[in-house]
């Protein structure tokens, strides 16, 4: 039969149910990807394990005996424990991170206050950011640790290298993190500020209750990214004396001629990063879930 009427009159059949074959096809794709990944890593492992220098590398980098000894330390041989060094890293980044989050926010807010009265402050903020983002962190650590005491300023010049190194970390990172905050603030649509001001809220109130909460939520991933970076950079404090984890590993390493302690230190740092990375993911997911189902209805 042909013609439109005929088309309408023919009973419409429901489409056939999905073939089992298509489900199988889905399964097969998964199988292929799993197998190829396994094969890839198996080949990689074999290449490494069968390399002629593998034995030597294994002994030098993965000696369980050295890892254990370096982790707990060997006081009789003057080898400090890595775990204690790592505690120093943790202390430093805990304190530093809090200070960075606060200082960076301050800088970011200062930079966007309008009006000629605040021009000097804005200028200082800009110069500070340019200076500390432009100078390698290692240099800042040296300059602070050796420069400030040399100036012999009352009270300020008698701290230890951990304080100076920590200050270097805080000032250096705040310059970067303030840019992250700025990006967040600018990503909040101007209409939010308009709405808040139109209700009679002052500029500061609008910033504090409307803009900043939104801005900060948006930049949580890059903020946490910088935090992870900070955790590693605490190791730089070693160059001015303090025995943190990497340094402790280095001491064992150079006296016993074995690199395994470095692997231990690396492992400790990774252990730290993973929960933080998952926490970031969780925060993003929670934020998305809370706002899911939104949008136009």
């Amino acid at each position: 039969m042909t013609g439109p009427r005929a088309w309408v009159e023919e009973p419409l059949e429901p489409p056939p149910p999905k073939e089992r074959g298509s489900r199988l096809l889905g399964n097969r794709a998964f199988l292929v990807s799993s197998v190829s990944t396994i094969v890839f890593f198996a080949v990689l492992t074999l290449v490494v394990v069968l390399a002629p220098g593998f034995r030597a590398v294994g002994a030098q980098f993965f000696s369980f005996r050295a890892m254990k000894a370096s982790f707990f330390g060997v006081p009789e041989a003057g080898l400090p424990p890595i775990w204690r060094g790592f505690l120093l890293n943790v202390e430093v980044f805990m304190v530093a991170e809090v200070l960075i989050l606060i200082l960076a926010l301050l800088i970011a807010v200062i930079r966007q206050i309008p009006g000629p009265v605040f021009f000097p402050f804005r200028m200082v903020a800009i110069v500070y950011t340019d200076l500390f983002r432009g100078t390698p962190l290692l240099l800042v650590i040296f300059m602070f640790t050796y420069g400030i005491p040399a100036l012999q300023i009352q009270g300020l010049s008698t701290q230890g290298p951990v304080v100076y190194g920590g200050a270097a970390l805080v000032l250096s990172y705040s310059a970067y993190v303030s840019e992250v905050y700025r990006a967040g603030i600018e990503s909040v649509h101007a209409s939010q500020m308009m709405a808040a001001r139109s209700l009679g809220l002052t500029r500061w109130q609008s910033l504090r209750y409307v803009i900043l909460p939104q801005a900060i939520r948006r930049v949580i991933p890059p903020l946490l990214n910088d935090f992870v970076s900070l955790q590693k950079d605490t190791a730089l404090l070693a160059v001015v004396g303090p025995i943190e984890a990497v340094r402790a590993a280095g001491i064992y390493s150079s006296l016993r001629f074995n690199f395994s302690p470095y692997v231990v230190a690396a492992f400790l740092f990774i252990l730290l990063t993973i929960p933080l990375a998952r926490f970031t993911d969780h925060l993003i997911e929670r934020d998305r879930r809370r706002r899911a189902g939104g949008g136009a209805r």
Partner: protein
Amino acid sequence: MIGNGEALRMEKVHKSFDATHVLRGIDLSVAEHEVICLIGASGSGKSTLLRCVNLLEDIDAGRIVVEGEEITAEGVDVNRIRRHIGIVFQSFNLFPHMTVMRNITLAPIKALKMSAADAEAGATELLERFGLVDKRDEFPDRLSGGQQQRLAIVRALAMKPDIMLLDEVTSALDPELVAEVLNVIRELAAGGMTMVIATHEMGFARDIANRVCFLDDGVILEEGPPAQIFTEPREERTKQFLQSIIEAGRM
């Protein structure tokens, strides 16, 4: 409140954005409890006019007097002025990170220094009045467009303003949601709120307005009671504008 019953007066107000001269001498007087509807083509300056009234934009010339006080004078506390003027926007501009209740109570608590209890009581009353009370702990993105705009109106009302400015508040809504918002506005008008409403909804304007002002090219070309404007417009441009509206089927 005070004064001679005149809620708002705009005298020879000019406003330019860079090279574009948007408001070219606005003269407008709004009495207390009056409802003024601003109609006109896009770009004629309706939004700009409203934003100048609550000082979201600075004017280049002229003056604006609200409840007897010249708000465009030197040294005026902008924040204080804004507390007495409510404005609702086309794109709602709700605070997405706050619940419905918090959206409403934020300004009364921080700007009016109301206690949290008082603010919430007032907010609840408004929510009940406008049928949103079961959403009080939701976030704005869970509301429909109509609910969001009603919430925006409630948020502005919570400040107990003397005058409400409504800037094309239904233009962004799906047609079936427009009615609920218009009903809210009707109720406000019935309750005696002084309002200046920029709108495309001609039928609504005809119902609710005490006066309709046709804005064309930065000036109020014609104003008068809705009956006169819509059936016997005097100006040629007004006629053309209304004609195009009819042809678009919006009347």
